[in-house]
């Protein structure tokens, strides 16, 4: 028993640094990432993502997995055709990877729950709990690992450094695989960036309404019952979700009667400049000179100039409202 202890102590002196490098790195990265994320300065999103995603989706789970399973899987029993039996204190690399990710999510969620119970769902207390949990797990992992004989310890960074069996392409097929994997990674990454930064075709909205008491435009609340000879105001809104300033033309048209008996007259043309990703409002006054039960008002929206004979076919958008006029 004392002999075992002596052997362990000697092992700590000799190999502890190399065998616990990943655990110490985990603790250090956790603190650095937490400080970066918690700092009240505007960093680029990419920097926050590089620091924040591992902090929230990998490091806490990695530390907990390292604490629970400090030993390395015995490669002699993980033969391809055999059933895995890595040992009580060990997990395979794939297990360690997936456990790190999923356990991290559970830890972050639990930290949020605890923070809510104490101070509320705020970033700093949640980060503090995540960091404390990760550091505690790292400490346990450090201790657990050193309690094992050196040849049983899981030491991924040392394994990488000392690996002699690393795969190197030796045939044309293997070179093809390497080139395809690198190309695939680059293309997928570039496509992802392109998809994230895509602005799309944009949307142009066109609607009619009336002005409310607080000065906003309420869709569909335009005056419908007019008094003969008295103007009523319709508000036309063009809302564009495009970058770049755009000039539009709105044509207001009056249609009296229907079918072949319909008579059409233009009320007016209105130029409207809409700033980038913004909206503009055009007020249009409608006046009817004689009593009418129903007059159709068409509003045509054109990007740029409108043709001499505007209609629903050529217009970019068409709105139709119905008004009536009576003597006062």
């Amino acid at each position, binding site marked *: 028993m004392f002999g075992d202890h002596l052997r362990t102590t000697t092992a700590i002196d000799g190999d502890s640094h190399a065998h616990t490098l990943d655990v110490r790195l985990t603790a250090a990265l956790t603190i650095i990432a937490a400080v970066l994320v918690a700092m009240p300065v505007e960093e680029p999103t990419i920097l926050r993502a590089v620091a924040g995603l591992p902090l929230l989706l990998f490091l806490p789970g990695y530390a907990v997995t390292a604490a629970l399973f400090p030993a390395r899987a015995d490669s002699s029993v993980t033969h391809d055709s055999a059933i895995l039996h890595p040992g009580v204190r060990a997990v395979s690399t794939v297990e360690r990877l997936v456990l790190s990710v999923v356990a991290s999510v559970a830890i972050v969620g639990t930290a949020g729950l605890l923070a*809510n119970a104490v101070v509320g769902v705020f970033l700093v207390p949640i980060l503090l709990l995540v960091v404390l949990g990760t550091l505690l797990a790292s400490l346990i992992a450090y201790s657990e690992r050193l309690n094992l004989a050196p040849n049983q310890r899981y030491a991924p960074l040392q394994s990488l450094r000392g690996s002699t069996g690393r795969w190197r392409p030796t045939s044309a097929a293997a070179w093809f695989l390497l080139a395809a994997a690198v190309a695939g990674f680059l293309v997928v990454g570039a496509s992802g960036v392109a998809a994230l930064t895509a602005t799309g075709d944009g949307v142009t909205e066109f*609607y009619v309404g009336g002005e409310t008491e607080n000065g906003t435009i309420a869709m569909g609340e335009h005056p419908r019952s007019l008094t003969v000879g008295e103007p009523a105001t319709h508000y036309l809104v063009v809302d564009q979700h495009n970058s770049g300033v755009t000039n539009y033309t709105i044509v207001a048209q009056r249609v009296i009667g229907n079918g072949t008996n319909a008579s059409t007259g233009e009320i007016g043309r209105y130029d409207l400049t809409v700033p980038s990703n913004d909206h503009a409002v055009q007020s249009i006054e409608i006046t009817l000179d004689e009593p009418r039960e129903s007059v159709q008002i068409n509003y045509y929206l054109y990007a740029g100039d409108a043709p001499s004979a505007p209609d629903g076919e050529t217009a970019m958008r068409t709105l139709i409202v119905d008004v009536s006029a009576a003597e006062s």
Partner: protein
Amino acid sequence: MRDATTNALQRRLTEPDLAAGTIGLLLGLALLPLAFVSSDILAQMLPVVLVVGCGLYQLVRFEGGLQQQVSPLERISGNGLDVLSGLTFLGIAGMAVVALLTDGRTVPFFVVAGLTGSAIFGQILFGVERELRPGLILAQLIAFSLVVRYAALLTTPGLMGVDAWTHVTDYAAAIDGANSLSAIADVKYVAAPIYHLVVVTVAEALRIPLRAALYASIGLVVPIASLFVYAGGRYILPVRWSLFAVAAFSVADHVVRWGLHLIPTSLGLVFFVGVLYALARIFVVGPTWRTYALAVGFSFATILTHQLSAFVLLVVLGAAAAVSLLANRGWLPYDVHAGLSVPALFGTYVVAVTVNWAMTPTRTGSFLLRMPDLLAQQIFRTAQFLNLVSAPATTEATGFAAPGVPFQIALLDSVGFLLFTLTAVIGSLALLRRGTADMITLVVVGALVVTGTFTLVLPLFGVNAFIPGRWYAFMYVPMAIVAAFGAWYVAQFVPRRVAVASLLVVAVIFPAGMLIAHKATLDNQVAGQHYAEYSYSAAELAAVETVGATVPDTRAPLVTDHPYRTVFLRTDAFDAEPLQLRGPPPSTYLYRDYQTTGAPTVLVGETPVTTTVDPGQYCGPETERLYANEDVLLCTAA
């Protein structure tokens, strides 16, 4: 002769796999007439699959006497595997490029994805054993899974599905705004808030919108968690068949679905797979406190994430505990012993879930007291044999295909699932064989049987109270392991040519079949005339926002199709009702181009029907048109 027949019969009764196969065969034959009384594709085809699977197993078992094939099936050597791996990476890159160029997951995307998926399955099924590099294949699989999901997530404006809108724009936003769970104090998720807290924390940490935070966190974790199937599978299966299991699970339609429609079910599935992985470890490595801690941790995480996932886990752990107790008592026809670790885990879980549900609020008291009442009401109201409920809106609940879909389309849509089921039927029989069966395999079969009962059998009797549509992805976890056994059985014992042909069919048809299934294509249906899309264009979402912001609340509810109306309701933009084709025209009607080109659901009387609507029908010249954008018109009765 008579002695031989008697011996065969005796063997059939005393060998558990043969007895189960016989029962399955008879059950399948008895259910074959379902094809004449139900138009549902699964009701028609599942009995056929059961008969074919059980029949094939019995035939091989009797004919071959389980003689293993002398020469292995695999034909692809190291160089061949390298080339195929390289082609797979290029295929994955091609998928990303096609999605970008065609602005989403269109048919060309699915062609490339199907071929790439086949390349991965080809490596797994036909690669020479000693040349298989599991790490490389898993890397391809994860990259493939990520591109399949993110190709949809990053090219689709807004969120996909129905519930995601509530969870993100309502619950998570409220928690973020109030910095407290008290913002959802009257919602059942106040007792299961892990999903929302993770999304809010990531959004705050990265200072990004909630949608982006959802995609950067849960969206990433769901496909990666599939690796649990491989990790757990390795305690039961050799490398090749563990790879097969994880590949089958990753491309399965409902698993893809929860990678697109990212809601608490998605995260519940992640933790659920984690528990099953820990369970496999408990049975194989032993019930150490380390593994037990994992099982308990993931079980509690499931409870704190999603009530339905917690219920599925309750059922599965209950089945595992029951199998353990039966084995301990010697009541199973196998020489197996399980100890009390799993019953103890089940007991711990029952206590935790009871406490949590007692604290979960519903409108009329705690979830624990309300749930049995709700279930009883649901069951007695709808229970009836073959009451599949023909409403498209209920396909979400039942998981059965939408009615009115032509047989060929429905068959194409279900071919992946049917192939999966066929392989799983063979696999479950192979697992029950004496000599193959051990505690963990019996538990896996038990888990498959109970989840299969809730998913496929209860809906046949009209019992949809357990929301069986949500169970598929959970059922797929044991099903993937069992199907891998089925594929192993075919490779080992079926005559060589038949085996090669069968596994080729699996490699070619299964991934493409699963990826184009309507549950996996919420963003852009391949059979868009028959299955509803649960994603929206930028113009459709702009209309929701503008209508919500500018139309006075005093106006009558607007009328539009399902599922578009759900976005108005879930984002609290405006009150919206389903379009009723019979009856007076709606006073405020929202038309979108999808109503003419896609598969919207409207009401005909009381019945939801998938049909197209002409723009002139309720947005003609006699109506006022108050709003217009690229895809949407808002019309009111003049």
